[in-house]
Protein backbone atom coordinates (compact mmCIF):
# COMPACT_ATOMS: atom_id res chain seq x y z
CA UNK A 1 0.00 0.00 0.00
CA UNK A 2 2.73 2.38 0.94
CA UNK A 3 4.62 1.53 -2.26
CA UNK A 4 1.62 2.41 -4.38
CA UNK A 5 1.19 5.67 -2.52
CA UNK A 6 4.81 6.60 -2.90
CA UNK A 7 4.83 5.61 -6.54
CA UNK A 8 1.77 7.67 -7.32
CA UNK A 9 3.18 10.64 -5.45
CA UNK A 10 6.52 10.28 -7.26
CA UNK A 11 4.77 10.23 -10.61
CA UNK A 12 2.79 13.32 -9.72
CA UNK A 13 5.89 15.17 -8.65
CA UNK A 14 7.67 14.11 -11.82
CA UNK A 15 4.85 15.48 -13.92
CA UNK A 16 4.92 18.72 -11.95
CA UNK A 17 8.64 19.16 -12.44
CA UNK A 18 8.41 18.36 -16.13
CA UNK A 19 5.69 20.93 -16.56
CA UNK A 20 7.61 23.60 -14.72
CA UNK A 21 10.80 23.01 -16.68
CA UNK A 22 8.93 22.96 -19.95
CA UNK A 23 7.11 26.18 -19.15
CA UNK A 24 10.05 28.10 -17.76
CA UNK A 25 12.78 27.40 -20.27
CA UNK A 26 12.58 29.00 -23.64
CA UNK A 27 13.80 26.16 -25.77
CA UNK A 28 10.80 25.15 -27.79
CA UNK A 29 12.59 25.62 -31.07
CA UNK A 30 16.31 25.43 -31.52
CA UNK A 31 18.41 26.41 -34.41
CA UNK A 32 22.09 26.80 -35.08
CA UNK A 33 22.19 30.41 -33.95
CA UNK A 34 19.88 30.29 -31.00
CA UNK A 35 16.60 29.23 -29.57
CA UNK A 36 13.15 30.72 -29.46
CA UNK A 37 9.84 30.64 -27.69
CA UNK A 38 8.01 30.46 -25.26
CA UNK A 39 9.10 33.66 -23.62
CA UNK A 40 12.26 34.84 -25.31
CA UNK A 41 13.92 34.62 -28.68
CA UNK A 42 17.63 34.44 -28.26
CA UNK A 43 20.12 34.61 -31.06
CA UNK A 44 23.85 34.48 -30.82
CA UNK A 45 25.38 37.40 -32.62
CA UNK A 46 28.96 38.32 -33.16
CA UNK A 47 29.39 39.92 -29.75
CA UNK A 48 27.44 37.42 -27.74
CA UNK A 49 23.85 36.58 -27.07
CA UNK A 50 21.03 38.90 -27.88
CA UNK A 51 17.64 38.10 -26.49
CA UNK A 52 14.37 39.76 -27.30
CA UNK A 53 10.86 39.12 -26.17
CA UNK A 54 8.98 36.36 -27.93
CA UNK A 55 6.62 37.53 -30.61
CA UNK A 56 3.39 38.92 -29.29
CA UNK A 57 1.14 36.93 -31.53
CA UNK A 58 -1.99 35.46 -30.04
CA UNK A 59 -1.05 31.86 -30.45
CA UNK A 60 2.18 32.23 -28.50
CA UNK A 61 0.26 33.90 -25.73
CA UNK A 62 -2.31 31.12 -25.80
CA UNK A 63 0.46 28.55 -25.47
CA UNK A 64 1.94 30.51 -22.58
CA UNK A 65 -1.41 30.69 -20.85
CA UNK A 66 -2.17 27.02 -21.30
CA UNK A 67 1.21 25.93 -20.01
CA UNK A 68 0.86 28.13 -16.95
CA UNK A 69 -2.62 26.82 -16.35
CA UNK A 70 -1.35 23.27 -16.62
CA UNK A 71 1.28 23.99 -13.98
CA UNK A 72 -1.30 25.60 -11.72
CA UNK A 73 -3.74 22.76 -12.07
CA UNK A 74 -1.04 20.19 -11.42
CA UNK A 75 -0.08 22.02 -8.25
CA UNK A 76 -3.69 22.29 -7.15
CA UNK A 77 -4.16 18.60 -7.75
CA UNK A 78 -1.09 17.92 -5.61
CA UNK A 79 -2.64 19.94 -2.80
CA UNK A 80 -5.97 18.20 -3.30
CA UNK A 81 -4.22 14.85 -3.11
CA UNK A 82 -2.55 15.79 0.16
CA UNK A 83 -5.88 17.00 1.53
CA UNK A 84 -7.89 14.04 0.40
CA UNK A 85 -5.28 11.65 1.67
CA UNK A 86 -6.06 12.66 5.21
CA UNK A 87 -9.67 13.75 5.00
CA UNK A 88 -11.36 11.34 2.64
CA UNK A 89 -13.68 8.76 4.07
CA UNK A 90 -12.65 5.16 3.81
CA UNK A 91 -13.20 3.61 0.40
CA UNK A 92 -13.56 6.94 -1.34
CA UNK A 93 -12.02 7.90 -4.64
CA UNK A 94 -9.73 10.82 -5.26
CA UNK A 95 -12.09 12.65 -7.57
CA UNK A 96 -10.81 16.15 -7.06
CA UNK A 97 -7.22 15.13 -7.57
CA UNK A 98 -7.92 13.21 -10.72
CA UNK A 99 -10.13 15.92 -12.20
CA UNK A 100 -7.44 18.54 -11.81
CA UNK A 101 -4.72 16.27 -13.06
CA UNK A 102 -6.70 15.32 -16.16
CA UNK A 103 -7.45 18.97 -16.81
CA UNK A 104 -3.74 19.72 -16.54
CA UNK A 105 -2.96 17.06 -19.09
CA UNK A 106 -5.62 18.41 -21.43
CA UNK A 107 -4.10 21.87 -21.17
CA UNK A 108 -0.62 20.59 -21.92
CA UNK A 109 -1.95 18.73 -24.91
CA UNK A 110 -3.69 21.83 -26.22
CA UNK A 111 -0.57 23.92 -25.73
CA UNK A 112 1.64 21.45 -27.52
CA UNK A 113 -0.80 21.05 -30.38
CA UNK A 114 -1.23 24.80 -30.84
CA UNK A 115 2.50 25.27 -30.85
CA UNK A 116 3.08 22.49 -33.36
CA UNK A 117 0.46 23.76 -35.77
CA UNK A 118 1.18 27.46 -35.59
CA UNK A 119 4.93 27.39 -35.61
CA UNK A 120 6.23 29.62 -38.41
CA UNK A 121 9.54 27.89 -39.12
CA UNK A 122 8.68 24.33 -40.05
CA UNK A 123 12.20 23.27 -40.85
CA UNK A 124 13.91 24.02 -37.58
CA UNK A 125 14.40 21.47 -34.85
CA UNK A 126 12.41 21.21 -31.71
CA UNK A 127 14.04 21.96 -28.39
CA UNK A 128 13.89 20.00 -25.20
CA UNK A 129 11.08 22.06 -23.67
CA UNK A 130 8.80 20.99 -26.47
CA UNK A 131 9.73 17.35 -25.98
CA UNK A 132 9.16 17.63 -22.23
CA UNK A 133 5.73 19.09 -22.82
CA UNK A 134 4.76 16.18 -25.00
CA UNK A 135 6.18 13.74 -22.45
CA UNK A 136 4.31 15.40 -19.62
CA UNK A 137 0.99 15.01 -21.39
CA UNK A 138 0.63 11.20 -21.28
CA UNK A 139 2.27 10.99 -17.88
CA UNK A 140 -0.22 13.41 -16.37
CA UNK A 141 -3.08 11.62 -18.08
CA UNK A 142 -1.96 8.31 -16.64
CA UNK A 143 -1.52 9.91 -13.24
CA UNK A 144 -5.01 11.35 -13.35
CA UNK A 145 -6.52 8.03 -14.35
CA UNK A 146 -4.68 6.27 -11.55
CA UNK A 147 -6.20 8.69 -9.09
CA UNK A 148 -9.59 7.90 -10.53
CA UNK A 149 -9.12 4.22 -9.92
CA UNK A 150 -7.38 4.54 -6.57
CA UNK A 151 -9.46 3.94 -3.52
CA UNK A 152 -8.61 5.05 -0.09
CA UNK A 153 -8.04 2.38 2.50
CA UNK A 154 -7.50 2.87 6.20
Amino acid sequence: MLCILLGVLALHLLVFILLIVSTASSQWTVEAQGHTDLWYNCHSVSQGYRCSQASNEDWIQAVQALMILAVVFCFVSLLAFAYQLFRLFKGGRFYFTSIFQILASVFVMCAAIIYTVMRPDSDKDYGYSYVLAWVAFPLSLISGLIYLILRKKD
Partner: protein
Amino acid sequence: MQSNGGWKGGGMGRAGPGMRGVVGYKPGDSGVSVVVLSLLAFCSPSSTLFFFWFFPSPPSSHAPSGVGTLPRQSPVRFAASVHFLGGSSNRSQKTMLRVLALASVVLLGIAPQASQAITVYTSWERHALVGSDVRLSCTFFSWRFISDDVSFTWRYRADGSRDTVSIAHYAGGEAYTDNKGVFKDRVEFVGNPKRRDGSILIKNLDFSDNGTFTCDAKNPPDIVGRPSSVRLLVFENLPIQAGVITGAIIGVVLGLLVLIVVIYYLMRFLVARRVFSLNVSKHGKKKKEGSQQRQGPAPPADPSKMKAAASEKKKQESRKDKK
Protein backbone atom coordinates in the same frame (compact mmCIF):
# COMPACT_ATOMS: atom_id res chain seq x y z
CA MET B 1 20.16 71.97 5.75
CA GLN B 2 23.76 71.26 4.99
CA SER B 3 25.25 67.87 5.52
CA ASN B 4 28.85 68.49 6.27
CA GLY B 5 31.76 66.62 4.84
CA GLY B 6 33.47 66.87 8.17
CA TRP B 7 30.69 65.11 9.91
CA LYS B 8 32.33 61.73 9.98
CA GLY B 9 32.06 59.03 12.53
CA GLY B 10 29.33 60.72 14.50
CA GLY B 11 31.30 63.83 15.26
CA MET B 12 32.83 62.45 18.34
CA GLY B 13 36.14 64.19 18.05
CA ARG B 14 34.96 67.10 16.02
CA ALA B 15 32.46 68.67 18.28
CA GLY B 16 33.19 72.17 17.00
CA PRO B 17 32.17 72.98 13.45
CA GLY B 18 30.39 69.72 12.82
CA MET B 19 28.16 70.15 15.78
CA ARG B 20 27.28 73.65 14.72
CA GLY B 21 26.17 72.49 11.37
CA VAL B 22 23.88 69.90 12.79
CA VAL B 23 22.65 71.91 15.72
CA GLY B 24 21.49 74.50 13.28
CA TYR B 25 18.13 73.03 14.13
CA LYS B 26 16.22 75.24 16.44
CA PRO B 27 16.35 74.09 20.03
CA GLY B 28 12.59 74.00 20.01
CA ASP B 29 12.75 70.97 17.77
CA SER B 30 12.80 68.63 20.69
CA GLY B 31 12.90 65.36 18.81
CA VAL B 32 16.02 66.19 16.90
CA SER B 33 17.57 67.74 19.93
CA VAL B 34 17.11 64.50 21.76
CA VAL B 35 18.96 62.74 18.99
CA VAL B 36 21.74 65.28 19.07
CA LEU B 37 21.98 65.14 22.79
CA SER B 38 22.06 61.39 22.71
CA LEU B 39 25.12 61.77 20.59
CA LEU B 40 26.50 63.92 23.31
CA ALA B 41 25.74 61.17 25.75
CA PHE B 42 28.32 59.13 23.92
CA CYS B 43 30.82 61.86 23.64
CA SER B 44 33.57 62.70 25.96
CA PRO B 45 32.84 65.13 28.73
CA SER B 46 34.59 67.94 26.85
CA SER B 47 31.84 68.02 24.26
CA THR B 48 29.22 68.35 26.93
CA LEU B 49 30.95 71.46 28.16
CA PHE B 50 30.73 72.81 24.66
CA PHE B 51 27.09 71.97 24.63
CA PHE B 52 26.42 74.03 27.70
CA TRP B 53 28.24 76.90 26.14
CA PHE B 54 25.97 76.68 23.14
CA PHE B 55 22.76 76.67 25.12
CA PRO B 56 23.37 79.57 27.41
CA SER B 57 20.64 78.96 29.92
CA PRO B 58 21.54 76.03 32.11
CA PRO B 59 18.87 73.77 33.49
CA SER B 60 17.26 75.38 36.44
CA SER B 61 17.23 72.42 38.66
CA HIS B 62 20.50 70.86 39.71
CA ALA B 63 18.94 68.57 42.22
CA PRO B 64 20.74 65.26 42.28
CA SER B 65 17.60 63.59 43.44
CA GLY B 66 16.95 62.27 39.96
CA VAL B 67 14.91 62.74 36.89
CA GLY B 68 11.57 62.97 38.61
CA THR B 69 11.89 66.63 39.52
CA LEU B 70 12.36 67.89 35.97
CA PRO B 71 9.29 67.09 33.88
CA ARG B 72 8.02 70.66 33.79
CA GLN B 73 10.86 71.83 31.61
CA SER B 74 11.23 71.49 27.86
CA PRO B 75 12.56 68.22 26.54
CA VAL B 76 15.81 69.90 25.57
CA ARG B 77 16.61 70.88 29.07
CA PHE B 78 15.23 67.65 30.31
CA ALA B 79 17.66 65.59 28.29
CA ALA B 80 20.46 68.00 29.10
CA SER B 81 19.77 67.71 32.76
CA VAL B 82 19.71 63.98 32.48
CA HIS B 83 23.16 63.97 31.06
CA PHE B 84 24.38 66.61 33.46
CA LEU B 85 23.24 64.50 36.31
CA GLY B 86 25.21 61.71 34.75
CA GLY B 87 25.36 58.95 37.22
CA SER B 88 21.81 59.25 38.40
CA SER B 89 20.30 58.12 35.10
CA ASN B 90 19.58 54.45 35.26
CA ARG B 91 20.67 51.72 32.93
CA SER B 92 17.65 51.61 30.66
CA GLN B 93 17.97 55.28 29.86
CA LYS B 94 21.61 54.84 29.12
CA THR B 95 20.98 52.01 26.72
CA MET B 96 18.18 53.98 25.09
CA LEU B 97 20.46 56.93 24.63
CA ARG B 98 23.13 54.68 23.21
CA VAL B 99 20.69 53.19 20.72
CA LEU B 100 19.55 56.66 19.71
CA ALA B 101 23.13 57.73 19.31
CA LEU B 102 23.89 54.75 17.14
CA ALA B 103 20.85 55.39 14.98
CA SER B 104 21.70 59.02 14.55
CA VAL B 105 25.27 58.13 13.71
CA VAL B 106 24.03 55.90 10.96
CA LEU B 107 21.53 58.41 9.66
CA LEU B 108 23.60 61.53 9.87
CA GLY B 109 27.07 60.18 9.40
CA ILE B 110 26.94 57.46 6.86
CA ALA B 111 23.89 58.13 4.75
CA PRO B 112 24.89 61.37 3.06
CA GLN B 113 28.21 59.90 2.03
CA ALA B 114 26.82 56.72 0.57
CA SER B 115 24.13 58.39 -1.48
CA GLN B 116 25.83 61.36 -3.00
CA ALA B 117 25.15 59.85 -6.39
CA ILE B 118 22.24 61.02 -8.44
CA THR B 119 19.97 58.32 -9.85
CA VAL B 120 18.26 58.84 -13.17
CA TYR B 121 15.07 57.03 -14.09
CA THR B 122 13.60 56.51 -17.52
CA SER B 123 11.31 53.92 -19.00
CA TRP B 124 12.84 50.72 -20.21
CA GLU B 125 11.22 50.59 -23.61
CA ARG B 126 8.67 52.64 -25.48
CA HIS B 127 6.50 51.54 -28.35
CA ALA B 128 4.99 53.97 -30.80
CA LEU B 129 3.27 54.09 -34.14
CA VAL B 130 4.76 55.60 -37.27
CA GLY B 131 3.80 59.22 -37.59
CA SER B 132 2.76 59.64 -34.00
CA ASP B 133 4.38 61.56 -31.16
CA VAL B 134 6.05 59.97 -28.19
CA ARG B 135 6.98 61.49 -24.87
CA LEU B 136 10.14 60.10 -23.34
CA SER B 137 10.19 60.73 -19.64
CA CYS B 138 13.28 61.22 -17.54
CA THR B 139 13.36 61.93 -13.86
CA PHE B 140 16.00 61.76 -11.22
CA PHE B 141 16.46 61.45 -7.49
CA SER B 142 19.02 63.48 -5.61
CA TRP B 143 19.65 64.02 -1.94
CA ARG B 144 20.22 67.71 -2.49
CA PHE B 145 17.73 70.40 -3.24
CA ILE B 146 17.23 71.23 -6.89
CA SER B 147 19.82 73.81 -7.76
CA ASP B 148 19.41 76.44 -10.42
CA ASP B 149 22.13 74.77 -12.47
CA VAL B 150 20.23 71.53 -12.94
CA SER B 151 20.88 70.13 -16.40
CA PHE B 152 19.44 67.42 -18.60
CA THR B 153 21.08 65.96 -21.67
CA TRP B 154 19.42 63.63 -24.14
CA ARG B 155 21.51 61.60 -26.54
CA TYR B 156 20.43 59.31 -29.33
CA ARG B 157 22.06 56.21 -30.72
CA ALA B 158 20.42 54.60 -33.71
CA ASP B 159 19.95 50.85 -33.80
CA GLY B 160 23.03 49.22 -35.20
CA SER B 161 25.07 52.39 -35.07
CA ARG B 162 27.89 53.20 -32.71
CA ASP B 163 27.64 56.96 -32.79
CA THR B 164 25.83 58.95 -30.19
CA VAL B 165 24.47 62.38 -30.96
CA SER B 166 23.09 64.92 -28.61
CA ILE B 167 19.55 65.92 -29.40
CA ALA B 168 18.36 67.97 -26.44
CA HIS B 169 20.00 69.86 -23.64
CA TYR B 170 18.62 71.86 -20.79
CA ALA B 171 20.96 74.02 -18.75
CA GLY B 172 20.81 77.27 -16.89
CA GLY B 173 17.08 77.56 -17.31
CA GLU B 174 17.19 77.31 -21.11
CA ALA B 175 16.29 74.34 -23.30
CA TYR B 176 18.24 73.66 -26.48
CA THR B 177 17.08 71.15 -29.04
CA ASP B 178 18.45 69.63 -32.18
CA ASN B 179 18.53 72.11 -35.06
CA LYS B 180 20.88 70.41 -37.48
CA GLY B 181 20.53 66.67 -37.34
CA VAL B 182 17.97 63.99 -37.86
CA PHE B 183 15.65 65.37 -35.21
CA LYS B 184 15.60 68.90 -36.51
CA ASP B 185 12.46 70.69 -35.36
CA ARG B 186 11.03 67.45 -34.11
CA VAL B 187 12.25 67.52 -30.53
CA GLU B 188 10.66 69.62 -27.85
CA PHE B 189 11.64 69.85 -24.22
CA VAL B 190 8.45 69.40 -22.24
CA GLY B 191 9.81 68.65 -18.82
CA ASN B 192 9.69 70.75 -15.68
CA PRO B 193 13.20 70.75 -14.24
CA LYS B 194 12.07 72.36 -11.03
CA ARG B 195 10.05 69.22 -10.45
CA ARG B 196 12.86 66.91 -11.49
CA ASP B 197 11.22 66.16 -14.83
CA GLY B 198 13.35 66.30 -17.94
CA SER B 199 11.07 64.76 -20.52
CA ILE B 200 11.19 65.40 -24.22
CA LEU B 201 8.57 65.06 -26.91
CA ILE B 202 9.50 63.61 -30.29
CA LYS B 203 7.05 64.28 -33.07
CA ASN B 204 6.26 62.57 -36.33
CA LEU B 205 8.13 59.35 -35.79
CA ASP B 206 9.68 57.37 -38.56
CA PHE B 207 11.20 53.92 -38.76
CA SER B 208 14.64 55.46 -38.72
CA ASP B 209 13.99 56.70 -35.19
CA ASN B 210 14.40 53.23 -33.76
CA GLY B 211 17.19 53.37 -31.25
CA THR B 212 18.31 54.13 -27.75
CA PHE B 213 17.76 57.48 -26.07
CA THR B 214 19.95 58.21 -23.09
CA CYS B 215 19.08 60.79 -20.47
CA ASP B 216 21.74 62.25 -18.25
CA ALA B 217 20.75 64.54 -15.41
CA LYS B 218 23.02 66.61 -13.23
CA ASN B 219 22.09 68.50 -10.11
CA PRO B 220 25.18 70.40 -9.00
CA PRO B 221 26.95 69.66 -6.74
CA ASP B 222 25.45 66.20 -7.11
CA ILE B 223 26.91 65.16 -10.41
CA VAL B 224 28.01 61.59 -9.96
CA GLY B 225 25.48 59.31 -11.53
CA ARG B 226 24.83 56.93 -14.34
CA PRO B 227 22.68 57.99 -17.26
CA SER B 228 19.64 55.90 -18.01
CA SER B 229 18.48 54.72 -21.43
CA VAL B 230 15.13 54.09 -23.00
CA ARG B 231 14.68 52.09 -26.15
CA LEU B 232 12.27 53.33 -28.75
CA LEU B 233 10.52 50.89 -31.05
CA VAL B 234 8.46 52.20 -33.92
CA PHE B 235 5.79 49.97 -35.38
CA GLU B 236 3.45 50.18 -38.30
CA ASN B 237 0.61 48.85 -36.25
CA LEU B 238 0.91 48.31 -32.58
CA PRO B 239 1.16 44.64 -31.74
CA ILE B 240 -0.89 43.16 -28.99
CA GLN B 241 0.77 43.86 -25.69
CA ALA B 242 2.72 40.92 -24.42
CA GLY B 243 0.78 39.01 -21.88
CA VAL B 244 -2.67 40.44 -22.43
CA ILE B 245 -4.09 37.33 -24.02
CA THR B 246 -2.12 35.14 -21.66
CA GLY B 247 -3.53 36.89 -18.66
CA ALA B 248 -7.01 36.85 -20.10
CA ILE B 249 -7.00 33.12 -20.72
CA ILE B 250 -5.58 32.33 -17.31
CA GLY B 251 -7.99 34.66 -15.60
CA VAL B 252 -11.01 33.28 -17.38
CA VAL B 253 -10.15 29.67 -16.70
CA LEU B 254 -9.36 30.23 -13.05
CA GLY B 255 -12.45 32.36 -12.68
CA LEU B 256 -14.57 29.62 -14.20
CA LEU B 257 -13.00 27.15 -11.82
CA VAL B 258 -13.79 29.28 -8.81
CA LEU B 259 -17.29 29.87 -10.13
CA ILE B 260 -17.91 26.17 -10.59
CA VAL B 261 -16.69 25.39 -7.09
CA VAL B 262 -18.83 28.12 -5.61
CA ILE B 263 -21.89 27.03 -7.54
CA TYR B 264 -21.32 23.43 -6.49
CA TYR B 265 -21.21 24.28 -2.83
CA LEU B 266 -24.10 26.69 -3.19
CA MET B 267 -26.26 24.03 -4.83
CA ARG B 268 -25.45 21.62 -2.06
CA PHE B 269 -26.27 24.20 0.51
CA LEU B 270 -29.47 25.28 -1.21
CA VAL B 271 -30.74 21.76 -1.68
CA ALA B 272 -30.28 21.07 1.98
CA ARG B 273 -31.85 24.36 2.86
CA ARG B 274 -34.80 23.84 0.59
CA VAL B 275 -35.55 20.60 2.33
CA PHE B 276 -35.42 22.31 5.67
CA SER B 277 -37.24 25.44 4.65
CA LEU B 278 -40.22 23.39 3.53
CA ASN B 279 -40.72 22.31 7.11
CA VAL B 280 -40.26 25.89 8.28
CA SER B 281 -42.89 27.25 5.91
CA LYS B 282 -45.31 24.59 7.10
CA HIS B 283 -44.62 25.65 10.66
CA GLY B 284 -44.91 29.30 9.63
CA LYS B 285 -48.29 28.70 8.05
CA LYS B 286 -49.54 26.94 11.11
CA LYS B 287 -48.30 29.76 13.29
CA LYS B 288 -49.90 32.31 11.04
CA GLU B 289 -53.25 30.58 11.27
CA GLY B 290 -52.83 30.39 14.98
CA SER B 291 -51.95 34.02 15.41
CA GLN B 292 -54.66 35.27 13.10
CA GLN B 293 -57.21 34.20 15.60
CA ARG B 294 -55.61 36.43 18.18
CA GLN B 295 -54.57 39.49 16.16
CA GLY B 296 -54.56 40.84 12.64
CA PRO B 297 -52.37 39.50 9.81
CA ALA B 298 -48.92 38.53 11.05
CA PRO B 299 -46.10 40.84 9.92
CA PRO B 300 -44.14 39.42 6.98
CA ALA B 301 -40.83 39.66 8.81
CA ASP B 302 -41.48 36.63 10.93
CA PRO B 303 -41.08 33.85 8.32
CA SER B 304 -37.82 35.36 7.01
CA LYS B 305 -36.47 35.62 10.53
CA MET B 306 -37.33 32.03 11.12
CA LYS B 307 -35.68 31.06 7.84
CA ALA B 308 -32.51 32.94 8.81
CA ALA B 309 -32.37 31.15 12.11
CA ALA B 310 -33.00 27.87 10.35
CA SER B 311 -30.22 28.49 7.84
CA GLU B 312 -27.82 29.32 10.63
CA LYS B 313 -28.68 26.11 12.36
CA LYS B 314 -28.17 24.28 9.08
CA LYS B 315 -24.78 25.89 8.61
CA GLN B 316 -23.65 24.77 12.00
CA GLU B 317 -24.88 21.29 11.30
CA SER B 318 -23.08 21.10 7.97
CA ARG B 319 -19.90 22.32 9.62
CA LYS B 320 -20.18 19.58 12.16
CA ASP B 321 -20.75 17.10 9.35
CA LYS B 322 -17.66 18.21 7.54
CA LYS B 323 -15.61 17.83 10.66
